């Protein structure tokens, strides 16, 4: 019995298909782009193909992420907070605090002993503390976003970046470069700045062990290490941090199914686009 979760993030769309044993059958990631609906279906089709299934074989489809309302073929829409919590608890049964660093927002999620969401904080108002911060600065520095973490880890100390605002930090970075500061040390300083921002935000919830860092930010070892420095102990990262929301969505779908809930309406599969 297959269940699918689709997580439409600001930057990427992720799909995970699991079976009734909660085993991952397939996953796929594609860009979100401007035409959510069209690309959502494409990523879904790719994943179904990988799993060797057909669309109609899916017993439940849950959509999550900020673009979840643009998935006409989903049986339910569930917030990414719930889905992340479900996915992370599945991977780390002892997790009590989740730090999710996405492309355009970051979240802190607190779980109770049973794995239920007890509280959360979110920053989607400002690019500081999100993947966007690093993305903007990596463009300024002409360094690939995926190389930033390793570069930070190679630094000998770090240059303090005092500006939280991405626009001002960009300017600060170019000034520090002009003053002769090392690129690696500046990049390390940027990671310190993001880590401060997300850890301070999550502190409002009370940081409790175990801590799991997820989302695209967890792919960045430099950032994970900076976060560990701020919380004072080791944190966990999922093997595939991009897909924890989609995984959680698939599992939430299975939970619905187990409680006897069935897809109500016929799934709309036509390609709707914003610009047609």
């Amino acid at each position: 019995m297959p269940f699918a979760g689709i997580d439409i993030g600001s930057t990427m769309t992720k799909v995970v298909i699991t079976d009734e044993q909660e085993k991952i059958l397939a996953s796929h990631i594609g860009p979100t782009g401007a035409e959510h609906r069209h690309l959502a279906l494409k990523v879904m089709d790719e994943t179904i193909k990988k799993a060797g299934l057909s669309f109609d074989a899916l017993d439940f489809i849950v959509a999550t992420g900020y673009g979840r309302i643009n998935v006409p073929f989903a049986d339910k829409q569930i917030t990414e907070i719930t889905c992340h919590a479900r996915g992370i608890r599945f991977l780390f049964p002892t997790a009590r605090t989740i730090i999710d660093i996405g492309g355009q927002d970051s979240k802190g999620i607190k779980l109770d002993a049973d794995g239920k969401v007890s509280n959360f904080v979110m920053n989607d108002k400002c690019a500081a503390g999100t993947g966007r911060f690093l993305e903007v600065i990596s463009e300024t520095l002409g360094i690939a976003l995926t190389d930033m973490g390793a570069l930070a880890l190679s630094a000998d100390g770090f240059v303090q970046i005092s500006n939280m605002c991405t626009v001002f930090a960009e300017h600060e970075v170019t000034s520090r470069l002009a003053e002769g500061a090392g690129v690696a040390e500046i990049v390390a300083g940027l990671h310190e700045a993001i880590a401060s921002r997300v850890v301070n935000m999550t502190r409002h919830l009370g940081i409790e062990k175990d801590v799991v860092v997820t989302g695209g930010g967890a792919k960045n070892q430099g950032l994970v290490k900076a976060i560990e420095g701020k919380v004072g102990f080791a944190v966990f990262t999922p093997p595939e941090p991009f897909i924890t929301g989609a995984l959680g969505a698939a599992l939430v779908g299975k939970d619905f199914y187990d409680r006897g809930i069935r897809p109500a309406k016929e799934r709309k599969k036509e390609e709707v686009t914003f610009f047609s």
Partner: protein
Amino acid sequence: MSDPKYYAGLDMGSVSIKAVIVDERGMIASGLIPSGGNYKTVAQKVMDNTLTQAGLSFDRLSGLVITGLGAAGAPFAGRQVSDISCQARGCSLLFPSARTIIDIGGQFTKVAKITPEGRIADFLMSEKCATGSGRFLQVIARILSVPLDEIGPLSLQSEKPVEFSTNCAVFAESETISRISEGAKPADILAGVHRAMAAKVAMLVKRLKLTPDVVLTGGGGQDSGLAPAVGEALKINILVPEFPRLSAAFGAACLAREDHS
């Protein structure tokens, strides 16, 4: 009768360096050049140009006050005064009724409450976020390929200002791109940016308790669309100096004159 006396003010800002020369009656010459990477050279050039315009040599100046972010790097000896004090002096001479000054510069937005004598009573600065500053406009104008001095006139043609769902300049940048692809007009986008900035600036002003008259100065004053937007947000009429970017340098020159009187 003794020789007429001349005084200069030099304002070394992050975007442009400005010089003003005054005599006993008022401003007789001024200059403005983008700051670029070498403040010292540019400051020297602005001062030289302004002196030439006034038909004076540097030795003829009886006093010089230097202000702005880069004041410490000035190539001349002169008394250093904070830019907000100079702004207060300049604006209160230009508008004796001024009690609040909003200075929207390239990086910072400052709000000062001033006494009837033109002294600072209270002061606030926004430096944490680009949204309330000129940088926000620069970022959006760059995407739209609109030169900075055309922002104001263009925005005033707007019929339906775009409403931004974000207050972050970085997110607004991506939102702008989406809006362009949806067919939004540059005029409406710029008017939307003015509204977002005005909301942020109004918040600062209200924290100091709004006291009219309000003068808008700095590069933001140069933008003819911004003052009406701030005025609308505060529900009052905003005064703008004839040369909003020169008011701090003018105030500095006047302070130099007061030093010697």
